[in-house]
């Protein structure tokens, strides 16, 4: 309906026009309280990652090899980052239970709202980071035995040589053409209550998830401010 698309467009427009560098929205966080039993454990929901080529014609073409590489870097870096803090991780790689599937999709809708709120500043959310998936998340808690779930989403496009030339040409005529971009978010959900306790959003015109060191930087930026 008109509202959703309009709002989404606005979020997009505002973000892109403002974006010449990494822009992070670190949301207010709730203190993390581990449960008394069984130590600290975070469920890593399979990161939704896609790396693609942005062609001169403006089409993004997914690259399976880059995506595999990028996703592996992300998973490895996150796991080692948490383990360094004495936090165990479990991977929820393929979710097939229908209720759990709905929870992940619900996260998608809520996560989008959180991102859009950076632009729309809903009055009821002003200075009030109050988002939840509801207590139904206990299904994830019971299945994967974690206190928190970490959701990660990254879309990353890389400009081809052809597009780079096009951009140069257009710039000379005073027309801006978008180059490759990196958009991502990372978010922590308390599996005891369903509350989103932390949300970090990354929008950048740089970044390289195809190589180890730059990928580690991206992950560090993604996890910036994570209250663990």
């Amino acid at each position, binding site marked *: 309906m008109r509202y959703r698309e309009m709002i*989404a*467009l606005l979020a997009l427009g505002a973000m892109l026009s403002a974006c010449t560098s990494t822009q992070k929205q670190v949301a207010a966080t709730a203190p993390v309280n581990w449960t008394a039993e069984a130590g600290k454990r975070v469920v890593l929901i399979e990161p*939704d990652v896609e790396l*693609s080529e942005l062609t001169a014609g403006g089409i993004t073409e*997914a690259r399976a090899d880059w995506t595999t590489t990028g996703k592996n870097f992300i998973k490895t870096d996150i796991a080692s980052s948490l383990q360094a803090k004495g936090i165990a991780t479990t991977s929820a790689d393929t979710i097939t239970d*229908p209720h759990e599937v709905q929870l*992940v999709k619900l996260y998608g809708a809520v996560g989008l709202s959180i991102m859009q709120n950076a632009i729309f500043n809903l009055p009821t959310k002003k200075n009030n980071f109050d988002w939840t998936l509801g207590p139904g998340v206990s299904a994830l808690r019971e299945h994967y035995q974690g206190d928190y779930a970490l959701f990660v989403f990254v879309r990353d496009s890389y400009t081809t040589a052809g597009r780079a030339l096009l951009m140069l040409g257009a710039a000379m005529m005073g027309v801006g053409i978008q180059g490759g971009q990196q958009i991502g*978010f990372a978010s922590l959900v308390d599996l005891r209550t369903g509350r989103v306790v932390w949300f970090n959003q990354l929008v950048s015109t740089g970044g390289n998830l195809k190589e180890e060191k730059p990928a580690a930087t991206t992950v560090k930026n993604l996890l910036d401010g994570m209250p663990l």
Partner: protein
Amino acid sequence: MKLKRALSLSCAGLLLMTASGQAADRYAMPPPGYTPDMSSDEAGIWMQVDKAEANIKTSPQLVRDEKLNAYVGGLVCKLAAEYCPSIRVYIVDVPEFNAYAMPNGAVVVYTGLLLQAENEAQLAFVLGHEITHYLHRHSLEHLRMAVNTTGFLAVFGIAAAGAGVGLLGSVASLAGVGAIYSNSRDEERDADDQGFRIGTQNGYAPGQAPAIWRFVADEEKANPDRSKSLFLADHPESAERMTTLQKAADTAAPTRSDWIVNEDAFHAATDPFVVKWVADELSKGRMEQSVVMFRRLAANVPSRGIYQYGLGEAYRRRNQPNDVAAAASAYRGALACADAPAESWRGLGLLAMKGGDNAGAKESFTQYRAKAPDASDKAMIDFYLTQL
């Protein structure tokens, strides 16, 4: 002079050989179990369709009924012959006439196709056409997922058309749109040819191939909104294709006397779902096409009241001059059948009430309440009765 001519002849000969060699390679089937090189475009596409397939597997719209899956899956398997193990069939609850095969061997069949086909032969020719796109690896470079799976627009909740795309909507959305190939004419011809061959090799009556495409084309013509037709997006219509298919059918028909259509097997498999599929078709609110479709289905199986009920609803909701009478006639036709859908009484009641025939409305609504005591709109019908 002589030497030059000799050379040019042999060059021509070489060119001829090369040309036919290319044609053969173009449609060479990959070995079963093939996967593309990871750095190729093809791998990128497979990655996206693998995601789309994973999404379909967990979709609320996936039809999980074992019997129906055994029937449709069994048919696809038979048609795919030695490629059967590479193919996975998914039936999806979408009231559109469509089926498509993804490059990774996933085949999606919409329930709209199962409603609109009249028999197994028609279904077989459509499925044979679609899986030929897979078997012959058509148009990999033309595959366009209707919701751009890597598009940043999708990230921000903007879909090609329609609401409710969340952050994770960047996984290709199957519902109502699906994978859209822009196949070349050659590829469409090839899919027609090979699809036809697959169907007839399996004994299906050749005349059913042009028949089903013709039905669908007729319904599309009734669609005032033709630019948005899902089917036409996938299958650019062409009188030439129809003529070719008809010619092939006419040639093949006399070659056997035992062609099959398997109407009974088809109905046995699909009957349990038809009431629901009819309701889904009507929910689209595209009454022009629904009228054409239900008229055909009702004429094809006059003993099945559900199609006449669908026709009645389509006329009533289309509400053009003379549609009221046509709707009433269709509802009554439905009620004369063994499976008389109780909702036909409701339809008659609504017509009567709007037409000022209070007595008629009262009688029809009373019948509806008696025949469908648990109807979800019973409170509303009771309210109408108090007003009559």
